[in-house]
């Protein structure tokens, strides 16, 4: 991560590809302020173009003086969908330290280079979409988690999450509680209904994300009907040898019921190794993916590489497999023992953070699985979104997460029942306004 995100705000940092855009570079402290009357040089390089063409090195340079507000403003047509590097050089009379940072490396400035900034240009279909960071699989005290619903959600907000689904075993109770408690909270965070569906037994783990009501509850209330439906479904399935028809039918039934109740069905941790055995036999996982039984695959898995390689092979057969990421966390306090589970989260690219937009975006494949148990993060999903996400991880999230941290602290003070302390609500509203303003300035929309 470059520290320049805390020294300069480039607004907008996301621009339309192939259209001229006015970009402002705002210094964020005395160390980065521009001096009146000095002329600053900007060099713009296209990252995903050719740093050397057959016939030479193309460059684009601007010479700028700061405006009345002490900002540098320039207009530029950013070509294609890619990241653009902006090298800001200070004049002799306004030089700073003889060192600069690029890609985490401290380097001596070859000349009067001052900062390496960046802008991302998006094609029309992606321009206008915001990236929302979310959790699609985690647990609270309502099942085998350590914190209650309010604390769990608060801790996710403190880590910069925009949406969360609490997916306790056998119940959507915690997720419904979170929705209720934070229904009118002044915070840009969406609570989704969630549950881990274990129907008919714990043998099957499916994530039901969003929607109106619980599949677990429906099964408990209509057990005989469900069994009859599954028995009928099992007769219609065309399956290769070696796959248990009844087991498979239950998985299909759960996915269908999740959608019928307005949510998504997510294939959870098929490569979880339980007692040295994969939780779902890979032959079954392959068939489930081929048949498009689920709306998305949670690619973050306990044994992730086989999951990635298998998805790749099934995609090569022409099957689309949207992905999400999660932690399957059972505790969210840092002071507690480190989770054995490899971490991850979901990035969803949607016009807004409403439940309908988020679910629709995941279903359409506009989501990513971000794997976090490695440094730096590894991103899986569509290539264009992956590239854009890596830019956001570098330039947006370091600031945004810092701005969300205080919001999480305040959300933990919300009572499980009754009205929140008005002072807490006011403070939360103020901090939320700050993070929303930053997001709007960063994206420009």
């Amino acid at each position, binding site marked *: 991560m470059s520290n320049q995100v805390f020294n300069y705000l480039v607004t907008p940092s996301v621009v339309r590809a192939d259209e001229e855009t006015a970009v402002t570079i705002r210094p964020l402290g005395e160390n980065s302020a521009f001096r009146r009357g000095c002329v600053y040089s900007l060099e713009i*390089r*296209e*990252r*995903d*173009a*050719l*740093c*050397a*063409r*057959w*016939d030479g090195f193309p460059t684009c340079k601007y010479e700028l003086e700061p405006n009345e507000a002490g900002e540098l403003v320039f207009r530029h047509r950013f070509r294609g969908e*890619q990241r653009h*590097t902006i*090298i800001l050089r200070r004049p002799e009379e306004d030089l700073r330290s003889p060192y600069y940072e*690029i*890609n*985490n*490396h401290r380097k001596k400035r070859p000349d009067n280079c001052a900062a*390496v900034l960046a802008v991302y240009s998006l094609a029309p279909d992606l321009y206008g979409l915001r990236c929302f960071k979310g959790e699609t699989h985690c647990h609270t005290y309502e099942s085998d988690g350590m914190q209650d619903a309010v604390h769990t959600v608060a801790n996710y907000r403190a880590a910069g999450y925009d949406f969360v689904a609490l997916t306790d075993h056998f119940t959507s109770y915690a997720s419904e509680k979170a929705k209720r408690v934070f229904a009118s909270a002044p915070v840009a965070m969406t609570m989704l209904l969630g549950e881990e569906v274990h129907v*008919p*037994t*714990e*043998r099957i783990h499916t994530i039901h994300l969003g929607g109106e009501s619980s599949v677990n509850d429906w099964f408990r209330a209509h057990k005989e009907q469900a069994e009859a439906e599954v028995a009928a479904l099992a007769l219609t399935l065309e399956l290769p040898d*070696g796959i*248990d028809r*009844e*087991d498979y039918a*239950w998985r299909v039934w759960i996915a269908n019921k999740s959608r019928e109740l307005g949510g998504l069905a997510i294939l959870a941790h098929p490569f979880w*190794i*339980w*007692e*040295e*055995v*994969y939780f779902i*036999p*890979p*032959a079954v996982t392959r068939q489930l993916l081929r048949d498009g039984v689920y709306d998305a695959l949670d690619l973050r898995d306990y044994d992730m*590489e*086989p999951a*990635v*390689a*298998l998805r*790749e*092979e099934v*995609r*090569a057969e*022409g099957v689309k497999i949207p992905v999400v990421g999660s932690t399957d966390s059972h505790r969210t306090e840092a002071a507690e023992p480190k989770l054995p589970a490899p971490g991850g989260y979901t990035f969803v690219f949607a016009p807004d953070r409403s439940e309908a937009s988020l679910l629709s975006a995941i279903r359409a494949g506009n989501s990513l699985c971000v794997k976090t148990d*490695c*440094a*730096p*993060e*590894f*991103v*899986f*999903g*569509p*290539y264009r979104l*992956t*590239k854009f996400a*890596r830019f956001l991880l570098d330039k947006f999230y370091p600031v945004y997460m810092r701005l969300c941290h205080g919001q999480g602290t305040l959300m933990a003070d919300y009572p499980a029942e009754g009205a929140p302390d008005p002072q807490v609500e006011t403070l939360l509203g103020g901090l939320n306004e700050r993070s929303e303003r930053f997001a709007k300035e960063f994206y420009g929309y």
Partner: protein
Amino acid sequence: MAGIIEIYPKVFRADAKQTVHIKTEGVEKLRPLTAKVQPMEKYDVPHSPEFRLESEEQRYPYQRLKDLGDGVFALEYEFKGEQRYSFKVRYDGVEICSTFLYSVEPDLAELRSFKCETHCHSCRSDGSGTPFEVACAYRAAGYDAMALTDHGWIEPSYEARDAIAPLTDDFRVFPGEEVHNEWSYYHVVHFGGNYSVNNLIRDKKEYIEAEIEKLLASRDFSDVSDPPSAAFRAVIAQEIRNAGGVAVMAHPYWEVQGEYFMPTEEFLHHWRRGDFDVLELFGGNDAVGNGNNLAEILRGELIAEGCRIPVLGASDAHVTKRKCGFDYFDLQFSVVFAKDFDGIPEALKNEYAVAVERRPEDGRFRCAGKYRLVKYARFLIREYYEPFAKLAAVHSAALAERDGAKIAAAEADIAAFRKRFFAF
């Protein structure tokens, strides 16, 4: 202290009854021993509402081992399909050994696995260590094969090959070079060919230029911004093939002064037309983790389009000694499955290789490639290559000393280990 000394073999043929041997010491204290083999992927158990995972032990019960004498026990087992197995040994209800076994389908049983480096440098270009020293360093890290690929010339790889070949048949140095244009901007790895493509570029400049012109005239380059760049790379790749080598697309997402080494449009252009043989998927030039990520994702999308993209991992190491910086050495490599050393180039082209990246922070591995090979390679990296590296280090030391007797002794140990590890 009494206990298990060795479990062997560890890799078996699928769908055949075979014997697992358990060598012990202090056997008189350990009788009776029991063991169980538990497949990782195949439950072979119908679903039922009562079924719970906790019943594993009932489905895969411990069996009493057959005493073969001299502290060696045996268990017969029918291995089903291609998968990993957990293998546990108990004495008096207490687990005293837990390890993994693997069974492979007949096609993999015919192949050997080779840990390979396909992109690294010596002091003959901008690396450190002589070609011979670099080769010995790779052997010490458990490699079976390597190519030295110094910038601009193939001769250093010949130097390493000629130094190693008379000493051993158990470690192969292939010819290699990193091919550049005159001003060194373009980087293509040439693995295993018969002559230098760098020399060709230098000595037959008109011929190369004519080939580029020919390609520009015959192919549609409208999908790239700089057709001569793309044509040059395609011509280099073709010349590598003409030389009998493997054309490797090296570090496409290496970030050079804030820019990618190869634009995405050119990446797509080359793979959609099959210009290269193999993609260097995991490379060492990835300081921020950006490049290997993007290469893997874009490869996935091209595969979904119907393209075929064999992969490998290569460190591009310039340093092999810890005291000298040790940059990417042994952090990225390939596990190649081939009949013998001579089959390695073809195996690379035919997707019989797994790209491997080792995370320096915790030593964990990441593998990419064909699903079944990824699974098998992950097993081998832990169960085979870790103990193998210790034997290879002894072999390497003997090679460095050029001591024939020590080399022969180390090779005998390696052969014995290999023979016991694989049941075929």
